[in-house]
């Protein structure tokens, strides 16, 4: 690992305020011009247990998390026991002196002396910020903003603790400092996680309606939008269940609101009937599925890429859909926008497939120029089509002119039954075939607009690493490290996993000596999808399904054995 990259893990029980330290530190680091990748690992409980908030930081761009820990802030003893084996050679463990630990790699903090117990996390932040060489005012400002809305007394106490703990840490031996290399010309960046980027992408696309039922790790998308609903003029509704959520969103979309739903695998299982309904009624909808390990309730707060095939095949009947799998925060933003555009253009379901790792992963991003990004608008209201308007007119593209109910003299029908061009149910089997063909023809247009996979490295490498969605950063970094060792490596990352257009990537697969798929699931679902669509068999696979994100180390370690 380059000396300039530092991996800081804050660990403790739920309720000890470790996320607060993490958030404030992350904010300060991004403002100081650093790149960060946050990995959150927590248990499905509100108090107790063992949680970590890990910030990997570097003055240069990074997109992956790291397993070895350089700085461990252990708020409880359990954290030390669980993570001391992960410490790097230069690793330091910051602990309460009361924990009674001895050794060169321990920083013993007199928490009792530095703060009242309930502000211990702030004392930890103070010490940490000095060890990293962060300016006091930077941290203080982030803290004031964070607590600003709460009571003044608390803000005052917090800043006293921060000042006191920083003063204590300034006196620490130099060997216990882990100063980050200075960023000379800090660029303005935003601190944002994947789910926030999805929510903001949706706002920029003009989302007007989101219905949801709470489920980790998707909930924060709805919460982010709910907080902005009043300002941005949209409706966020917590439905009675996921079935209601998707049917509500479809009703809203039919009536003219740009609509979306967000959920995780279990909730999506309930929504599936609605996917099919969107296809049949040709109603635009964006569906975000934030994956977590299954089956059933699985590991509610961990990560996996296990629902690709589920989403791909979701919905009875045969119909086109598109599935995006963003690999960066920026892609979360832009591909969510893209999903809205395509949902409107092709009048049907479009997916954004993410996971817990990306959902909770805060990173530094270049600000989006939203003023230059047009919102998706359903049909212009004032355009009056010819009198013989047919909602489901048979067209070459399969896309029929969509009007909204209530704005013109036409009445607009939508039916879950097979229907004639005016939307009325029919059992005319010839019409059935025409309609099925018409709907399916949209796949041609969709395929022509597929976001191509991103190929990096040599054209004919010895080793080609194939990945999709959130593993992008880890795969890129693993490849970079292999290249510095002189290996011939290429990478192929899919940010849209359906439809697949073989012409876009077959030359890469065929041109490599060895192809390895890297996926966060147990059976190599994407490799299987490649095989069924192209016949190309990627037999070598690096898979991970223990609930943790794929890291560069994980790939390098397992590469040896594939």
């Amino acid at each position, binding site marked *: 690992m380059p000396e300039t990259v530092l991996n800081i893990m804050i660990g403790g029980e739920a309720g000890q305020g470790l996320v607060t330290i993490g958030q404030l530190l992350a904010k300060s680091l991004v*403002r100081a011009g650093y790149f960060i990748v946050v990995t959150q690992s927590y248990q499905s409980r509100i108090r107790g247990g063992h949680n970590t908030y890990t910030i990997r930081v570097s003055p240069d761009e990074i997109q992956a998390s790291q397993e070895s820990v350089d700085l461990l802030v252990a708020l409880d003893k359990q954290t030390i026991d669980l993570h001391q084996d992960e410490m790097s050679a230069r690793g330091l463990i910051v602990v309460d002196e009361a924990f009674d630990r001895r050794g060169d790699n321990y920083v013993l903090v007199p928490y009792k002396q530095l703060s009242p117990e309930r502000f211990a996390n702030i004392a930890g932040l103070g010490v940490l910020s000095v060890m990293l060489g962060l300016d006091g005012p930077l941290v203080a400002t982030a803290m004031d903003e964070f607590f600003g809305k709460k009571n003044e007394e608390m803000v005052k106490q917090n800043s006293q603790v921060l000042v006191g703990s920083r003063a204590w840490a300034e006196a620490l031996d130099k060997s216990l400092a882990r100063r980050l290399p200075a960023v000379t010309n800090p660029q*303005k960046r*935003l*601190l*944002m996680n994947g789910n926030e980027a999805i929510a*903001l992408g949706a*706002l*920029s696309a*003009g989302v*007007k*309606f989101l*219905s949801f039922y709470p489920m980790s790790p998707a909930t924060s998308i709805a919460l982010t939008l709910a907080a*902005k*609903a009043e300002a*941005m*003029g*949209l*409706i966020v*509704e917590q*439905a*009675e269940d996921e*079935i*209601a959520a998707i*049917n*509500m969103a*479809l*009703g*809203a*979309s*039919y*009536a*003219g*609101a740009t*609509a979306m739903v967000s959920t995780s695998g279990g909730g999506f299982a309930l929504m599936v*009937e*609605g996917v099919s*309904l969107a296809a049949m*009624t040709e109603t635009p909808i964006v569906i975000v599925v934030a994956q977590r390990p299954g089956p059933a309730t699985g590991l509610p707060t961990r990560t996996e890429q296990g629902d690709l095939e589920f989403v791909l095949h979701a919905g009875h009947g045969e119909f086109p859909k598109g599935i995006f799998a963003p690999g960066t925060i920026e892609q979360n933003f832009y591909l969510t926008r893209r999903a809205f555009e395509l949902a409107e253009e092709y009048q049907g379901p479009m997916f954004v497939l993410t996971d817990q790792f990306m959902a909770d992963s805060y990173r530094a991003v270049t*600000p989006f120029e*939203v*003023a230059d*990004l047009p*919102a998706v608008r359903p049909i212009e*209201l004032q355009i009056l089509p010819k009198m013989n308007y047919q909602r489901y007119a048979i067209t070459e593209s399969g896309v029929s002119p969509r009007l*909204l*109910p*209530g704005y*013109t*003299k*036409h*009445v*607009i*029908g*939508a*039916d*879950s*039954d097979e229907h004639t061009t005016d*939307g*009325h*149910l029919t059992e005319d089997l010839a019409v059935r075939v025409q309609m099925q063909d018409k709907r399916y023809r949209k796949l041609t247009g969709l395929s022509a607009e597929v976001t191509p996979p991103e190929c990096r490295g040599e054209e004919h490498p010895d080793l080609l690493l194939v990945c999709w969605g959130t593993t992008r950063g880890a795969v890129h970094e693993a490849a970079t490290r292999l290249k510095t060792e002189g290996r011939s490596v290429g990478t192929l990352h899919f940010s849209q996993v359906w439809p697949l257009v073989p012409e876009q990537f077959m030359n890469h697969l065929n041109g490599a000596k060895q192809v390895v798929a890297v996926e966060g699931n147990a059976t190599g679902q994407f490799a299987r999808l490649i095989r069924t669509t192209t016949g190309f068999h990627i037999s070598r696979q690096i898979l991970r399904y223990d609930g943790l994100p794929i890291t560069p180390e994980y790939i390098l370690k397992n590469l040896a054995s594939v």
Partner: protein
Amino acid sequence: MVSFEGYGNYETAWCPGCGNHAILEALKKALVTAELLPYRVLIVSGIGQAAKSPHYLNVNFFNGLHGRALPAATGAKLANPDLNVIVESGDGCNYGEGGNHFLAAIRRNIDVTLLVHDNQVYGLTKGQASPTTAEGFVTKAQPAGVPSIPFNPVAVATAMQAGFVARGFSGNVDHLSDLIVKAMAHPGFALVDIMQPCVSFNKVNTFAWYKQRCQPVSEDHDPTDWEQAMKVAFTWGDRIPIGVIYHNQRPAFETHFSALKRGPLIKQPVNTTKLAGILESFA
């Protein structure tokens, strides 16, 4: 001009003698009385015999999935509150498959008129028991008789203090039509549970059976008196009261959303200045 003919005249797929014919007529009359233009009306339905109704009317329609009419209607009403939204579906659709949505719609008090064609049976799937089927009723699926007690939608809605609760009978078209007009005029959730004979699969609750029992609520019934309404709602036997059973003036769901104070959602362009401000808060 709003006219009976303007709402169209279609061939239906219903059995001759089915109560659905009369309900369709009552609805048409109500739409004309309320002077609603077809393109301002949206009928949302689920799946079942009753749910086919919007195909026999010249109106906007969203014929969605079995049980899911209310959520779709809720979404549509929120997207465009200017639409007059009616939900039409069966007892199975609304109280069985969509039971949770029925409760949620009452709690929300969304301004939607729910017309339940209550034939106390699953018509389209050929006669299985529905939530309102009487205890002991024998079907091919329940050959030993239905073991559960029936759901009383009027009592549940009244108990939950739904905005407007009424019961109608397809055999009394003018009375039913009047109920529908009142339900549509109510600014909030309105239920009209409509007794409807199914000539093919319900040989117990026949036209004559309903005709004998369905009698207007007594003149002195005060539908704003909840306790009185609860008594009426539980009346079921030799006499089945029809008419407005309960109503209140709770504000409709959609009045709680500030976004809707500026009109239908589609008419509100994205404010990129505000969005830029939101993004700035992530800096």
